[in-house]
């Protein structure tokens, strides 16, 4: 009721009162001041309650039904093929039948398997990232890798570190240049890249300190300069 009054008040401020009969519709008003859009239709909605009951179809199915009849013959053909329905040419006389078949098939399996694609993509990204890392490690000596792992816990093997120092630097740069690419490809792997960089920085610092230490210790038989 209040809605109706509001509506009337908005429409014609002067004549609001005359229309306050309980079931009065606005149709009796003259058409002079026709405000675009608002008033009449909204008032109708408020007034009329007896709307014909709609069939309880699923909204998704109804949307699909409408969409199916708007599709071209080629699109229908493709859809039929997707659902694995063998079909002949889609002509006037056969179209209705195929639309029905598609509806049935859609009801049984409503979701197209498109969500898997993103999942697959993530896996792909991971795979490419790994392949970038592996060849770099192999570029330097295979021994280098093992020794690097041992470097951190063992500070005693100076002899090993001497030969490794220059080689490590070059490898590090190589690593850096390539390590960037996978980071750029997949923005979600930022933390992994940062971890890798930190590790390399620690190794570089360790090598640097070892180098300094060795400079101060001329006892070493290996040449250091």
């Amino acid at each position, binding site marked *: 009721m209040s809605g109706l009054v509001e509506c009337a008040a908005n429409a014609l401020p002067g004549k609001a009162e005359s229309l306050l009969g309980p079931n009065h519709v606005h149709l009796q008003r003259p058409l002079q001041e026709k405000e675009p859009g608002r008033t009449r239709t909204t008032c109708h909605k408020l007034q009329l309650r007896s709307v014909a009951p709609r069939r309880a179809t699923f909204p998704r199915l109804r949307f699909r039904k409408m969409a199916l009849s708007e599709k071209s013959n080629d699109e229908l053909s493709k859809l039929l093929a997707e659902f694995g329905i*063998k*079909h*002949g*040419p889609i*002509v006037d*006389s*056969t179209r209705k*039948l195929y639309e*029905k078949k598609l509806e049935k098939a859609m009801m049984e399996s409503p979701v197209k398997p498109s969500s898997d694609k993103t999942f697959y993509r993530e896996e792909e990204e991971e795979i490419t990232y790994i392949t970038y890392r592996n060849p770099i490690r192999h570029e330097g000596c295979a021994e280098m890798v093992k020794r690097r792992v041992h470097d951190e816990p063992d500070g005693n093997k100076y002899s090993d570190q001497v030969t490794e120092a220059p080689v490590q630097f070059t490898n590090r740069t190589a690593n850096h240049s390539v390590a960037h690419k996978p980071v750029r490809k997949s923005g979600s792997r930022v933390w992994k890249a940062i971890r890798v960089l930190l590790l390399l920085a620690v190794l570089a610092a360790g090598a640097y300190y070892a180098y300094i230490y060795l400079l101060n210790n001329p006892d070493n038989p290996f040449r250091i300069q």
Partner: protein
Amino acid sequence: MSTTSQKHRDFVGEPMGDKPVTSLSGIGETLGKKLEEQGFDKAFVVLGQFLLLKKDTEMFTEWLKDASGANSRQAGSCAQCLKEWCDAFL
């Protein structure tokens, strides 16, 4: 062969030519009229629809039930009739 009707045997036994749609097995007066209203006034037009559906009896049965209001038995009989005619003459 023993389960088929005389109508069926008559139809399948020779080329259909210009036979009316009511000569098809399973199609009587009522169904025949409904089909004629939709433009299927001769048996060969119904054959055309059968061929469009790639001679698939299931699909054709579905279509016929929808188009003419035939029940499963009648539609199935018509489909079978057409299929055998095709096997013989097509």
